[in-house]
């Protein structure tokens, strides 16, 4: 507030300005729960409940610790290091570090976005993620912090809390701090909680201000795939996750009326947020396609923001004569900071090749420079590419020594040597086969002793497929509407919608993106709610059915049984957690405000949701998963996810692990392994599908709901495993749970297992939730 003149007993004040940092929201009547703004140990008891049910199974990726100068210390099989740490604690410490890095990355992203938007729109700019359709605008934030944010300025305070917590979490990983593996794990869960808040803040800030779809089930279908890019025009390619520099580019292009004369394309999550801002932007594809797009020569200018950007991208861009603009202070690429220089000078330097790249930290200037450079350089570089010609591949393949180092360096163990041998004999078919399953890391080239550009060979061999990639993807819709939650709350909690499947994360797939499409389609057809985000959302949309429709055309975009909805970029993952939280709030009318434990207990026991990160590779994926573990939501990862080196596994064979309290009576009731695991690696697509169906089972399912869930589990198991499940007796509580069409078959199985009927409780893990204590 500003006061021109104020007379007081103390004196006369002129031009007085007062700034109030924190505003207590008196209008929110919801009572505050027990854990607003939790610290490192506030929710430790809850974490330990989960960690005792789902104990860590450690698979150390390394026998050593080399984090301090005492080391390297050999921690093999029970040995302790110089600081006293053992391999269990060290493994969980690495998990904490990964989750903290992930949480810091999303929160740092949010900080940049919020600061930029506050500067542009002011602290009092109102938040709006869905108009009247979304009254619970920030469910994660309300739950964790107890704050109901209403303006951009409110987000600032929330981020301060996140930043403080991440500092504490990272400090706990210092040598000689935390020592117990389960306490490290609890802190990793806390990192996940903070991560969810950071992601939510980032996304609601950009949704509110940048005109993104607001909880829109019918968000625009946008073009996706290299084949959709009009390469006759100058092409600006944006890589990363932070939309702010892209906003500068798109605004400048629009102001200059160049929409019809240029292409703005994106890779990874920036691509999604570009299309949420400008529906004529195009999505090239997931993170793993960076090299193929650049080497193919399509990009005239490469703009880098933050996260998951290949660190050799400036070298790659130089090879195709494409200038690079680094636009994030987190990724300066070694370029000179030209933020204060006149735009035209920077343009001249980039177009002439005087410099290969520049750092520009002003998004508006990024926009002007990128657009001008693209226009000027496109006719000069003429989509210069470095992919070899087919005849060249055949000739160069003859120099292959068949040393196997390419295959032994390939994360996928792809049979590159035999493909090279075939290519040398004139047969490119095996190389073409590799195109679909190659994750584009380029390690094969690093390993090759004769310097063959193996990845380029694969891309060239698959060029026809690449240029034919023309698909449609739903632009990220953002949050789930309150009315959608009301419509599905009851069938989800009672089990009649068999589950919510969230297919999220990166593209480090074991055998290509088609698995993601197949899994999504299977469960959409089974009327699960299928939610996608990030690179997985792209892969889900990259294949078509027999009618030529992508998933996003084939299925509705609403949060409903049989819906396939893309919430958006990585930070939009918070809306998936938010939807589960809103089921507890809107449908079950539980208080959210600072009431984490109760809501997580509700979700864990009632909301049949499962996350699948089939190609998870990053630390951010670890922290996203951790946010779901903390809510009691199981997460599956594909085989590469085993490299997170710690699983959280239940033991179905230990009956005593599966007791809950019946909130009605206080009685202990055995509910079986539902859900069986909290974090698990699955090896194949088929295993993933069966596991998803099983992990949607919850103690609270009604008879009808359980029957529906079991029918999906049994059906998938018989089809994909070729046999009946052997653990059915653990999930049948009364004969009413048994699917009617399977009654005869299952009755025999239950009798053979000595099955006994049990009750369906009002399940909780929290003694304080028992309404009538047992006397």
């Amino acid at each position, binding site marked *: 507030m500003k006061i021109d003149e104020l007379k007081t007993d103390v004196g006369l004040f002129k031009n007085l300005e007062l700034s109030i940092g924190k505003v207590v929201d008196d209008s929110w009547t919801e009572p505050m729960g027990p854990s607003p703004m939790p610290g490192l140990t506030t929710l430790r008891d809850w974490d330990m409940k989960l960690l005792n049910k789902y104990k860590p*199974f*450690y*698979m*150390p*990726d*390394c*026998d*050593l610790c080399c984090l301090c100068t005492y080391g390297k210390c*050999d*921690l*093999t*099989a*029970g040995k302790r290091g110089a600081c006293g740490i053992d*391999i*269990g604690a060290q493994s969980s410490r690495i998990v904490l570090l990964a989750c903290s890095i992930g949480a810091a990355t999303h929160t740092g992203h949010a900080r940049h976005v919020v600061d930029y938007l506050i500067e542009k729109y002011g602290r009092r700019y109102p938040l709006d993620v869905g108009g009247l359709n979304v009254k619970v605008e920030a469910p994660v934030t309300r739950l964790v912090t107890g704050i109901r944010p209403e303006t951009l300025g409110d987000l600032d305070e929330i981020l301060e809390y996140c930043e403080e917590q991440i500092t504490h979490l990272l400090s706990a990983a210092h040598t000689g701090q935390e020592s117990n593996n389960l306490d490290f794990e609890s802190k990793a869960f806390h990192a996940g909680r903070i991560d969810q808040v950071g992601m939510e803040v980032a996304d609601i800030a950009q949704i509110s201000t940048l005109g993104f779809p607001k909880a829109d089930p019918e968000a625009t279908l946008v073009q996706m795939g290299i084949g959709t890019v009009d390469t006759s025009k100058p092409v600006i390619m944006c890589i990363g996750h932070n939309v702010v520099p892209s906003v500068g580019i798109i605004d400048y292009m629009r102001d200059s009326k160049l929409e019809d004369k240029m292409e703005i394309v994106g890779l990874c999550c920036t691509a999604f947020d570009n299309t949420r801002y400008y529906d004529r932007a195009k999505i090239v594809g997931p993170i793993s396609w960076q090299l193929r797009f650049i080497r193919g020569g399509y990009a005239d200018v490469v703009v880098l923001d933050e996260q998951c950007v290949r660190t050799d991208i400036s070298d790659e861009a130089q090879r195709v004569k494409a200038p690079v603009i680094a636009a994030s202070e987190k990724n300066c690429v070694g370029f000179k900071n030209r933020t204060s220089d006149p735009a035209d000078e920077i343009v001249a330097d980039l177009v002439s090749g005087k410099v290969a790249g520049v750092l520009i930290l002003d998004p508006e200037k990024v926009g002007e420079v990128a657009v001008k450079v693209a226009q000027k350089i496109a006719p000069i570089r003429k989509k210069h590419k470095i992919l070899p010609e087919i005849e060249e591949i055949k000739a160069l393949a003859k120099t292959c020594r068949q040393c196997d*180092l390419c295959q*032994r*360096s390939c*994360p996928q*163990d792809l049979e590159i040597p035999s493909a090279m041998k075939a290519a040398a004999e004139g047969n490119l078919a095996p190389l073409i086969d590799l195109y679909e399953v190659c994750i584009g890391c380029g390690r094969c080239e690093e*390993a090759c002793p004769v310097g063959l550009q193996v990845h380029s060979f694969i891309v060239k061999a698959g060029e026809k497929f690449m240029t034919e990639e023309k698909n449609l993807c739903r632009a990220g819709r953002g949050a789930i509407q309150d009315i959608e939650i009301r419509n599905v709350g009851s069938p989800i909690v009672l089990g009649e919608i068999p589950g919510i499947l969230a297919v999220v994360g990166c593209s480090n797939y*074991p055998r290509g993106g088609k698995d993601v499409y197949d899994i999504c389609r299977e469960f959409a057809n089974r009327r699960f709610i299928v939610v996608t985000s990030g690179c997985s959302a792209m892969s889900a949309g990259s294949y078509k059915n027999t009618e030529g429709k992508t998933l996003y055309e084939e299925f509705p975009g609403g949060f409903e049984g049989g819906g396939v909805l893309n919430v958006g970029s990585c930070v939009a993952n918070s809306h998936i957690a938010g939807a589960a939280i809103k089921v507890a709030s809107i449908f079950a009318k539980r208080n959210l405000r600072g009431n984490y434990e109760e809501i997580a207990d509700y979700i864990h026991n009632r909301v049949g949701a499962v996350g699948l990160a089939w190609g998870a590779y990053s630390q951010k994926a670890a922290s996203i998963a951790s946010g779901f573990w903390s809510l009691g939501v199981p997460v599956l990862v594909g*085989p*590469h996810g*085993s*490299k997170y*080196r710690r*699983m959280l*596994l239940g*033991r179905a*064979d230990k009956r005593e692990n599966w007791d809950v309290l019946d909130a009605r009576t206080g009685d202990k009731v055995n509910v079986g392994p539902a859900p069986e*695991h909290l974090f*698990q*690696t*699955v*090896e*194949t697509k*088929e*295993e993933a599908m*069966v*596991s998803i169906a099983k992990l949607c089972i919850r103690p609270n399912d009604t008879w009808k709901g359980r029957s529906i869930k079991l029918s999906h589990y049994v059906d998938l198991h018989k089809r*994909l*495993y*070729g*046999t009946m499940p*052997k653990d059915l007796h653990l999930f049948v509580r009364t004969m009413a749970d048994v699917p009617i069409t399977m009654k005869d078959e299952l009755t025999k199985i239950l009798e053979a297992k000595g099955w006994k009927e049990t009750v369906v409780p009002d399940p909780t893990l929290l003694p304080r939730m028992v309404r009538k204590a047992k006397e």
Partner: protein
Amino acid sequence: MSCEPWQCAEVAATKKAHVITKPEVAAAMIKKAARPILVVGSNATRRTLKDKLLIEYLIDFARASKAPVVATAHIVGEFLKRGYEPAEFMSAMDIGNRLVDPEWQGINDKGHPDLALFVGMPYYMESLILSGLKHFAPDLRTMTIDNMYHPHASWSFPNLSINDWAQNLEVIVGKLGGE
């Protein structure tokens, strides 16, 4: 023959697998084990040796060794199709997790396995499980019968050609009393 890890970067092991130089040695160790199990991963139906799928060699192996088979992922059905019923099927993580539990009494409740044979998983995944067992199941011996050197196992064949691998499996089956 090389006893470098198959995946070049898999070097961070201080306690490395003993190299099995002759298949007869592997057969002798399997014979000596009181409660061996054979854990078979999903690559059993993806890899072909000579003119047969790996799973067909493994069925011969299982019959000869009488080691109960734990089929991971979805491949139990592939065994059943071929007329062999695995003793158990469960996820690779689940069998790893049970093996580190000293109280677990094995798949037939006859006691904790004393030798766990692994074959046919994605290399990196098998490597991580073997690492978990090396660190947390100190009394368990592990062996891979893949053709790739696994430093985290107790015993492993070196990196081998497909033909050498097939020949080794045939020798082991023969020594264990199979055809």
